[in-house]
């Protein structure tokens, strides 16, 4: 075979490897900040492809999508243009855990994102496989493709996803492959080891897809979308919302004892249990065979049938992720109510892939070993489109800032779920594909879906990712919230007959004296809309998002204040930096475990050090004193 001839390609500021959900956000952020950006993908028809569930958002994840939007990213706008169903989850619970989720039209989602990339002036989208990096003296200077191209760049972001030495497993069948039978990247991650990066193998999986024409929907329960408008992007107006009749429903069915028996009798053919699968899978998204084994006493498991798009009859069987042989998958499907005659279109599969152990990353997502090299998404051990996109935008921002010679941006845990996720990854690492859950955030009352813009849009504007027009709209919204809260703290509700009739109809004590409107609104049953019946309306009617913000801020003020006090304490700790060149060997008296962990993770602040398991308060005390001593020694 003739040898591939190397050639010098163009120069770029930023190169992003992989155009999945992480890669597209990284490339768009870098390009929009003014960097000449190259986005490489193995297959242009798989840009922003959804190889697993056809949905975006949900608890914690939905808030990440809002955070991406608040920073000027694309995921929210893209799903707002291509969803087939929208639902707000957890509406009966508190404001911190409400979560928006959309069912996506997979093809439309991909096509829309690809078009957005094509329209971006500073961005070049190109098909090809990146085999290696150009690294000189520990500094990344570009990439080398399978076609022989050498592209140089100031910074490189790797978001290789499951293509990184991917291996698909279906029963006894096993082959190298990226997601959905795409070509895998067999060389890139192997070469990362050459530069000293430590890799491990993770596993994830996807369920079979069936032909919707063969589903008996009558045997299942309909799960429609919401009538009330909601979008992910703060920019999408309510009038764009799809009427319920134009949305597609999902359908709920269950496994049963017959299903479980089929699985049990075929466990000897299940790669999960025969030792074929080496990679570590996620606990929160177990395969159906795993569920049957681990929860043997459950007589049924939920399954959601979800449409893959408008112009297809392919349906996704949520909850039935499996790597059983194709023959068994069909038997399983046919044992389920509503799927008795379902035609399998694509079998489910497990996929193993390479990940970079995330303790090797800085909070900016730059690798510690190779300067100017960043990694994002599944490459860092996460799972989920939203988690990938959240890291993607942060990696793109930091790669872009470095290329521009500017200071990096690290989102704090108190500023967003994205900050929580990245801090968890680089501080604690992960032993399984990492998924965001609301319980991972210690400040979840502050990290709400309604206030992502208040938390992050000023930063997005500062970075050049939010236009002046949008920023001015944001400032107006913020002002409207402040003004109305101030007004409600001066206007009084008087104990009129009408007020007391209202109050008593909600089984609460009638008013004897007038109370501040804000005080009145604090009562659990009282809404802002109700309140306006008893006080004069504001000069201009308020947007529903402004009203939502006001209600939350007033009703939950006590809890929010407590959380903010904790955040303030934490910020003091974040301010205590650990010098980058610190020699932990030189610190006498650290416990052995603490010493090893500190040396491995190399935290950047005292706050980060306290979050490392095995580093106890005495170690932190010694570390603080050591650093302070060094600081004084330098001054003298």
């Amino acid at each position: 075979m003739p040898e591939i001839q190397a050639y010098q390609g163009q120069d770029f500021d930023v190169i992003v490897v992989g155009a999945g959900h992480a890669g597209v956000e990284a490339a768009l952020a870098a390009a929009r900040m003014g960097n000449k950006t190259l986005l490489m993908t193995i297959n242009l028809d798989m840009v922003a492809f959804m190889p697993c569930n056809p949905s975006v958002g949900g608890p914690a994840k939905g808030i990440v999508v809002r955070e991406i939007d608040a920073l000027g990213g694309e995921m929210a706008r893209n799903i707002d243009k291509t969803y087939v169903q929208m639902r707000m989850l957890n509406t009966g619970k508190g404001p911190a855990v409400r979560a928006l989720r959309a069912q996506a039209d997979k093809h439309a989602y991909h096509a829309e994102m690809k078009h957005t990339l094509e329209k971006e002036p500073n961005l070049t989208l190109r098909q090809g496989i990146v085999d290696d990096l150009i690294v000189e003296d520990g500094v990344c200077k570009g990439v080398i493709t399978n076609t022989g191209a050498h592209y140089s760049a100031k910074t490189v972001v790797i978001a290789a996803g499951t293509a990184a030495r991917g291996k698909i497993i279906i029963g006894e069948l096993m082959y190298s492959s990226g997601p959905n039978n795409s070509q895998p990247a067999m060389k890139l991650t192997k070469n990362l080891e050459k530069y000293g990066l430590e890799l491990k193998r993770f596993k994830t999986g996807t369920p079979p897809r069936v032909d919707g024409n063969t589903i008996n929907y009558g045997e299942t329960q309909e799960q429609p979308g919401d009538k009330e408008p909601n979008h992910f992007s703060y920019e999408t107006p309510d009038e764009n919302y799809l009427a319920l009749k134009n949305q597609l429903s999902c359908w709920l069915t269950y496994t049963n004892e017959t299903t479980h028996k089929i699985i049990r009798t075929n466990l000897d053919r299940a790669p999960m249990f025969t030792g074929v699968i080496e990679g570590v899978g996620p606990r929160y998204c177990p395969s159906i065979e795993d569920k049957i084994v681990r929860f043997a006493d459950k007589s049924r498991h939920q399954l959601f049938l979800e449409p893959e798009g408008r112009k297809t009859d392919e349906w996704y069987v949520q909850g039935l992720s499996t790597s059983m042989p194709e023959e068994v998958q069909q038997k399983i499907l046919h044992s389920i109510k509503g799927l008795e005659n379902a035609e399998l279109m694509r079998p489910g599969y497990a996929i193993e892939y390479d990940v970079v152990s995330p303790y090797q990353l800085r909070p900016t997502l730059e690798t510690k070993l190779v300067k100017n090299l960043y990694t994002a998404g599944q490459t860092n051990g996460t799972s989920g489109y939203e988690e990938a996109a959240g890291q993607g935008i942060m990696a793109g921002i930091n790669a872009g800032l470095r290329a521009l010679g500017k200071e990096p941006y690290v989102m704090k845990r108190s500023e967003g779920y994205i900050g929580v996720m990245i801090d968890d990854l680089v501080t604690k690492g992960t032993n399984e594909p990492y998924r965001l859950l609301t319980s991972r955030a210690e400040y979840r009352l502050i990290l709400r879906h309604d206030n992502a813009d208040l938390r992050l849009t000023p930063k997005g504007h500062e970075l050049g990712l939010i236009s002046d027009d949008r920023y001015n709209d944001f400032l107006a919204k913020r002002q409207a919230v402040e003004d109305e809260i101030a007004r409600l703290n001066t206007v009084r509700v008087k104990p009129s007959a009408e007020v007391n009739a209202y109050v008593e109809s909600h089984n609460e004590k009638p008013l004897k004296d007038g109370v501040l409107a804000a005080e009145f609104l604090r009562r659990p049953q009282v809404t802002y809309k109700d309140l306006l019946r008893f006080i004069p309306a504001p000069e201009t009617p308020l947007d529903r998002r402004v009203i939502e913000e006001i209600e939350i801020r007033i009703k939950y003020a006590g809890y929010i204040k407590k959380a903010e006090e904790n955040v303030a304490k934490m910020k003091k700790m974040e301010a205590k930096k650990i010098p980058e060149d610190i020699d932990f060997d030189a610190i006498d008296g650290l416990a052995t475990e603490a010493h090893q962990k500190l040396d491995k993770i190399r935290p950047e602040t005292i706050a980060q050090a306290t979050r490392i398991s095995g580093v106890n308060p005495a170690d932190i005390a010694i570390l603080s004193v050591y650093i302070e001593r060094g600081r004084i020694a330098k001054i003298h």
Partner: protein
Amino acid sequence: MTTTSEFDTIAAVATPPGEGGISIIRVSGDHAFEAVMPLFKGKALDKVKSHTINYGHIIDPETQSEVDEVMVSVMRAPRTYTREDVLEINCHGGLVATNEILQLVISQGARLAEPGEFTKRAFLNGRIDLSQAEAVMDLIRAKTDRSMKVALNQLDGNLSRLIKNLRQDILEVLAQVEVNIDYPEYDDVETMTTKLLLEKAKEVKASIGQLLKTAKQGKVLRDGLATAIVGRPNVGKSSLLNELLHEDKAIVTDVAGTTRDVIEEYVNVGGVPLKLVDTAGIHHTDDKVEKIGVERSKQAIAAADLVVLVLNASEPLTAEDRQLLQDTADEKRIIILNKTDLPIKLEMTELNQLANGTKIIQASMTKNQGIDQLEGEISHLFFDEGIETGRGNVMVTNARHIGLLKQASQALDDVMSGIAAGMPVDLVQIDMTRCWNKLGEITGDSYQDELLDQLFSQFCVGK
């Protein structure tokens, strides 16, 4: 979580432990005033001038009862040792009152200071110079070793079992709330309602209340800590008892009913009142009524909260000694090695092995040596480590534990008031989680992924 502990307001007894004289409880940090003022009857401390000393009383805010007459020094940042706000409570009520005041300060939100922590803060805030840094680090290192051992000792026993059970109960509730939030469409699990949460909060609060009831050291003052002095004949039990009695520490309590004829049963050692079990037996066995000696010892051990085992250093270990060492292995005990003024014939290596970490005090009753160490050890066991009383009923005496239990209980009050105010489950849960964390601080469990582990093992989720 220890994340923000660097900026907690901290408190500790600043004077060496011992009876009599003045004890000082030092409080330092942003919330020093908040931690002391609710307990202080006297001038409004936040209104007085800095660097003044103020007369008043410490009261227990729950019962409104007076704990002690005190002087409080008020020193505002930055002209203080730590460069933080510092309040010092000077009291004169002895160890029990000192500890009670410390507990009260902790229950107001202060944290018991780590070893060397005041000095560490002084250094970090630029108060002391470079040459002292090494000394500070040595201090932290040295004391950490000791406090780690203490923490381990506290970990076994009924208290930690009880707390662990409570935490597991709460954890299951928390996991259920979390699974409702993160998997809202998952229908296999009962939805956690505020009603269920309220029931759980009440249940846990009752359990904590039970524990706190035992925490009143006053109860011990009244009843005495059941203590058995055991040993084979002629090792010096009687002398020890007489030594304790003659030290003018006999009486002991002013409680009605303490009459002359029971005087021998009560001694006050290092501030801890001991109720001696079977004093008759002590004399009898020395009177060489040997048949009943061993059996009697066993009964005494069974009835005691604390065992003082006396051995004779001038003779090799006997089978009876070994039996007693074995019988007391699971008890809170102190070993007195008597007659060390004579040539030592006892096998120290074997004794150390059998003692298995128990404090061994070298003593000579005839030379009046070792009594001070015994007193020190008893008060250390009682105040620092905590002794269980009443055979299996957990008793909390450690100031840090009591403070944390009170904070856990307050978190539950917040759960209940949140529910009463109509707050949704996921907000009320914030306070439930706080309760869980406070209890975890007692047992030293702070494994952060505990909740997720629980969630994924309890529920089969997947959307």
